[in-house]
């Protein structure tokens, strides 16, 4: 499987859900380098999930543009694929058919499709479950199938909308590590929307902090940590504290470190 990353360029992006309503965000600008993993963090209602849907082409912006290299995003495409909070697998299909459904939509020849599906299942360590009914899988396994369903399309950009928030802590941690590792190994871009600061530290090269209504990008922090990242490492803990401070500051509250010092 050969995937390349893309240069993401979001320019002056605005969105409002209804023509008379308040804008969700206005004139938002964001760039990412090829292969970069971005985490967008912020409180509910700041527009981070809406931003992800627009990047995926599932919502139309009111103004502005999104380019992946020279291609303007004007609708959904297998090159920029989104994974949702729930796996939303198709229960009438076995695991392998779920994974290959995008290739079927693209009318791939059966043999090549099967090879690609097998490779994607190996990547997410579910090669022994190809003929399993998806309803017999655990939540974590189902989310791995959803990941394989996205990876099989060889996306240049994988968008993750709080994809692990419904999972138990152990499964979540393992998937966070695996998704980053696969992204780095294959070279595609990753944008993850999350409420979880730990998730941002473990998965991202850069954290983008959004706040306010209409939403604005308040801060961008490089997460320059070596891989693999362990939660208990001092550097990870330090970055977590830094992101937490920036998160509170963006929300207009005193940084957690100052609050605890005052106490």
């Amino acid at each position: 499987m050969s995937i390349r990353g893309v240069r993401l360029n979001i320019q002056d992006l605005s969105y409002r859900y209804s023509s008379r309503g308040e804008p969700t965000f206005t004139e938002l600008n964001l760039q990412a380098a090829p292969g970069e993993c971005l985490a967008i963090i912020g409180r509910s209602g700041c527009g981070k999930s809406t931003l992800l849907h627009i990047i995926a082409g599932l919502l139309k912006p009111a103004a502005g543009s999104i380019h992946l290299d020279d291609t303007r995003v004007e609708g959904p495409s297998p090159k920029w694929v989104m994974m949702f909070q729930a796996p939303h697998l198709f229960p009438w299909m076995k695991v392998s058919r779920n994974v290959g459904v995008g290739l079927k939509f693209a009318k791939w020849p059966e043999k090549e499709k099967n090879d690609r599906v097998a490779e994607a299942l190996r990547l997410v360590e579910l090669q022994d479950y190809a003929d399993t009914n998806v309803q017999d899988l655990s939540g974590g396994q189902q989310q791995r199938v959803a990941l394989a369903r996205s990876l099989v399309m060889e996306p240049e950009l994988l968008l993750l909308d709080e994809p692990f928030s419904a999972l138990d802590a152990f499964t979540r941690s393992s998937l966070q590590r695996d998704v980053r590792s696969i992204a780095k190994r294959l070279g595609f871009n990753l944008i993850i929307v999350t409420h979880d600061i730990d998730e941002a530290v473990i998965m991202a090269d850069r954290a983008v902090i959004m706040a306010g209504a209409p939403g604005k990008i308040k801060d961008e922090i490089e997460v320059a940590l070596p891989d693999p990242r362990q939660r208990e490492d001092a550097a990870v803990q330090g970055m977590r504290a830094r992101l937490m401070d920036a998160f509170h500051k963006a929300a207009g509250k005193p940084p957690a470190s100052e609050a605890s010092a005052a106490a």
Partner: protein
Amino acid sequence: MSATATNATNPRAAAQAAARSAVNWVVGMAIFLALWWLGGYFIGANPKTASFAGFGLIPTLEAFPALWQSGKLQAATLASGERLGAGMALAIAIGLPIGIIVGRSKFFRDLSNSGFQFVRMISPLSWTPIAVLVFSSWDGSIIFLVAIAAVWPVVFATAAGLAKVDPAWFKVARNLGANPVQMLNQIIMPAIAFDVFTGIRLALGVAWVVLVPAELLGVTSGLGYTIKDARETLSYDHLTAMVLTIGVIGYFLDSVCVGLIRRFSWHRGDA
């Protein structure tokens, strides 16, 4: 975990459940036949009702070879089958797309609800005078009556199935590049297949119920007509044999629908 889910993973439990079901079927059928035989016996034993002894189980079963050899049974079944098939095909061809639109579009649902509910409540057979005026043949009228009776279960079951579909499936499919035809064939239809076949099963029941009285009206073929003919010639054994045939065919068609529902159901716990 439901019994069905347990059976799906435990072949022995599945075999036991199937055996239990078969035994229950046989015992139920034996009770039904015994009661029929007993009723026939008392009718035949009473001099006042002895002329109706043909309604009994044994005379009915004995009538089948004669009906078969004369070709009446095959001709009647074929004529009724053609009308039922045409009516059902029409009901599905009209009901399925309408059901999908009703299920997908709130605007269309709101717009059509009062009209559909009103027309649905009109007894199908009350359309007969209009059908006879509109269609040049009795066959056309009967097919229309069958279709108008069967279309509503298909429409409403399809719409209800679509209303239960996870909207995120459409988003995921769009995200993975599905075009509208693929969305219909590979997402919508499999997602609602269970409800569509359930609707077809209900529609078939209604259609079968409407078909026989419709054939009593003016045609000279079909199961309904053959029953009327047997009554007029006082051939009660033939009459009951045709009634039994209607029951057997209806039961068979219903079993086919149940099989299709099982085949296409992805809901855990559906039987």
